[in-house]
């Protein structure tokens, strides 16, 4: 029997965060709408290392799926920064969706190292946390300019 070294999803995300960010950036480069807002790679990816730290922290915290207990100041700052950089809220949503896709790709590439039954709750936590950070970022994005955030 081949001995497989198992890792937690949190550990895999920590280990692969750089390559996942790189994968995300390559996807972002292919999105014409996102690229319509010129930005350096550093500006485009600045929020991601902290987002990964938040994700890892969330995965290692015994919180109930669906809770919003972990309040991220960085997600709020990201929303404000994106507003100033010229993003629309739709671009932020698309960026977040791409991030989730890149994270899931990384997990798929590391399935050999993950105990499958342990993975399901972690995947749900990741999906929830990425959306929670997006929710927070968009709220701050909207608050930054009430006239633009208010509906017609």
């Amino acid at each position: 029997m081949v001995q497989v070294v198992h890792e937690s999803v949190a550990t895999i995300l920590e280990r692969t965060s750089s390559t996942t960010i790189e994968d995300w950036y390559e996807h972002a480069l292919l999105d014409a709408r996102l690229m319509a807002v010129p930005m350096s790679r550093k500006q485009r990816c600045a929020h991601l290392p902290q987002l990964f730290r938040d994700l890892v922290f969330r995965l290692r915290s015994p919180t109930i799926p669906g809770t919003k207990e972990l309040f991220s100041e960085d997600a709020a700052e990201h929303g404000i920064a994106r507003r100033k950089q010229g993003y629309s809220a739709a671009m932020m949503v698309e960026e977040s969706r791409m991030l989730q896709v890149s994270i899931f790709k990384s997990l798929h590439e590391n399935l050999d190292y993950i105990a499958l039954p342990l993975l399901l709750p972690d995947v749900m936590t990741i999906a929830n946390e990425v959306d929670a950070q997006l929710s927070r970022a968009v709220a701050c994005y909207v608050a930054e300019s009430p006239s633009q955030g208010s509906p017609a």
Partner: protein
Amino acid sequence: MKPTRILLVDDDDLILMTLKDVMEYEGFEVTVAVNVPDALKLISSNIYDVLLSDLHMPDAGDGLTVVSAMRHANPKAVTMLLTSFPEMDAASHAILLQTDQILVKPMNVTDLIVAIKERLAIGAPATRIVESVATILERATESTIQDWFAHVQNDEAVMAVAMTFDQRTSHLPQVFVDLVHRLRSFKSFGSKELVSPAAAQHGLDRRKQGYSAAMLVEESRILQVSVFHTLQRNLARIDFSILLTEVMTIADEIDSQLAQAMASYILESVDDLLPA
């Protein structure tokens, strides 16, 4: 009396042949498979009373694929998984939803034979109903929408916009139709091929109803949570070997619909296209 027919699956030849010899000596009729494809072929063309499979062959969860195939082909067979993975204790509840027993290595052969005989004595397991995630979502659409609405009612920001139940939830039946379609279409993650006119219309409607972009995002996040709650409530009915991929697909599709809704929401107001 007919001998008990057992299918042994393990990628370690030595373990496989040792177990085969001992079990034949004990009166079992033994067939062996050294990998998942061989096991699946045997399961589809023969009838077995017992499946004893390694969990990792070599990929994590390979044994679950074999168990799943046996459950579909012959629900009356006893299924047992062997694992040397210490964390399986923590995961055993989830795995037990799929198989009848987990045996942790190292285990001496005598104990293994006793475990198999005891399990056979209990008799055939109750037939388990296995459903696809798409079928579960179809069946549980109404209850999931109710769960979602209950969560939304606890969100002060969203509830600040007064709306009837029908107005609040009118988009959701179509979201579920789209989700089910996506799950059955096997599109890859990140695929944007499945365009939803309903999602775009939802963005326009929410704008007119008075939602902010942040509310739209929050509502979508709550929907994802409710869908995951539904899956957790139905875990015993789900084919575990494909569940992970389907959960990822659901998360991707809900975000894809949000992206489409947000795009039309913003198009409704030129202001939003012009950030500060």
